[in-house]
């Protein structure tokens, strides 16, 4: 890729849109994952008894649904990303490549 070609790609509005929107989306989801996981870990490190609090009269504690929920949320967030990336972002990528013509 020559310097001019790089400039041409970088100045393409659709490319700029693709990069900024996808980065924002990917980092937002990553931060949600990290915050969720490290909150979980920090509670275990600093106040594990919080997860031992019983829900209702039985033996079920708060920690069990929280733990299972993290597994489900991980999967759901992955699904949300793939849906948008394989649809909207891939369409945008195709448009960028068409506009760039012989560079792509």
């Amino acid at each position, binding site marked *: 890729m020559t310097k001019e070609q790089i400039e041409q790609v970088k100045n393409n509005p659709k490319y700029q849109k693709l990069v900024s929107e996808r980065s924002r989306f990917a980092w937002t989801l*990553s931060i949600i994952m990290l915050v969720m996981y490290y909150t979980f870990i920090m509670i275990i490190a600093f106040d594990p008894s919080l997860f031992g609090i019983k829900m209702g009269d*039985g033996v079920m504690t708060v920690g069990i649904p929280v733990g299972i929920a993290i597994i489900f949320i991980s999967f759901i967030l992955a699904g949300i*990303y793939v849906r948008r990336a394989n649809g909207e972002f*891939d369409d945008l990528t195709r448009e960028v490549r068409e506009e760039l013509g012989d560079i792509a």
Partner: protein
Amino acid sequence: MKKLLLIALPLLLSVAAVASGTIEGEIEKQPLNVSAIIMFLLFVSGTLGITYWAAKRTKTAKDFYTAGGGITGLQNGMAIAGDYMSAASFLGISGLVYMAGYDGLIYSIGFLVGWPVILFLISERLRNLGKYTFADVAAYRLKQAPIRTLAAFGSIATVILYLIAQMVGAGKLIQLLFGLPYELAVVLVGVLMILYVTFGGMLATTWVQIIKAVLLLSGATFMALAVMSHFGFSLEAMFAAAVKVHPAHQAIMAPGKLVSDPVSAISLGIALMFGTAGLPHILMRFFTVADAKEARKSVFYATGFIGYFYILTFIIGFGAIIMVLNNPEYIDHAKAVVNGAAPILGGKNMAAIHLADAVGGSFFLGFISAVAFATILAVVSGLTLAGASAISHDLYANVFNKSGEVDEAKEMRVSKIATVVLGIITIFLGIAFEQQNIAFVVGLAFAIAASANFPVLFLSMFWSKLTTRGAVLGGSLGLATAVMLVILGPIVWVQILGNAEAIFPYKYPALFSVTVAFVGIWFFSITDNSEAAEKERALFEAQDIRSQTGIGAEGASEH
């Protein structure tokens, strides 16, 4: 041989006793677990058939390393799950749940949460930039020889450590389950993995992993359903029964001793999350699919399968508390006399195996034993292929080969030789480590992956100012710190070397070693004023465009 029988007999006797409904203690000789061996032979002949089929389709280097790049997202997701769900995580995590309840869930979650992050930040860039190994990406705009040497070193170290853990686990498991001698088991695993990889390359490895994932998920699903149906599919009823019989009672429903201080907690989290994103055999799987779209799908499916599997192991562990803990068939009476408690036959990792017998009888026990064996084979094959690729593609073709032109046939021959040599080394190490405490080995593999492989790979894709000097020095520092802190830590320094107190007090070094790696890479990059460094920084933009759009990516051309 005598010693082996002594270990294997009690288990087999108990199996026989359950199967025939005889009263406990009656002696019925059953030196070999026949149904397990038959099912295992079926798996082996099936997979060798696949290897024969794959061998005919493996002609080029691209076929060998990436199965031609034609694996679909769903297949690759299944194979990633098959690569990642080791026998250690099946038996180890269900065993941990059996011993400590909730702590097993903490571990599982740590092993899972890295996956979505890999999807969001790494998978498509990796697919767009790479060819055969993750070093292709790390060395994309940096100097080939030093970066590939570091990446290959990190890969081979991770692979060999992981292989040792798998081999020792395989030997012990097979000795216990099948009544075969340890050495024979290790040689058998080694020979089969050499056959799969040398002849069938990535295509055979992928299918072995897919079949294993299907078998493991089906077996675990059956066990979890059997446990749940016992309690009318009420989680509350199951937990209540477990709390009643477990010696720790209500304590198994909350976090216990696994992570007790914040530093260990964060450190374990970093090791599991970043370590997953630095495992060479996992990263390599992203090059087997056609494009970024399929790469994303692979991780989505893999996250689903792995998450589902961990929920199953949690139920299996609780099922084992209820059905194994109070059943004298599964208790090691000889040990109980000495220790007073009720230790489980074959150690805590056998909880899931005993539960298989309790819910499905000896036939299902045979099935689960065969699945555990298949699981090990699938994981070691993926590891060996990754190790061999680091040797042939990174070291041979791009470091030692100064001429520039790479003869593809020669490179493939080197990777096959490397597979055989790695296999033989692994067999010897597996036998040498039989009596060793290998608890630190997988932790060390994850620490190296997180501290050497991951920071270099990550920054090469995200940080324009990265230079060769920064990557090599920072990555090496991370690697050295990880190794040193593991040696000075409680497991090696105290438990293995017999010192009174650990110099480094934490079991998991990742928090420190990953920080050292990132700071090192940053510092030695920004202070690099050489002309070469300027050029490397200038190349970032073109790399970034390719990683964002897939323009020029391997296998992306449809014409």
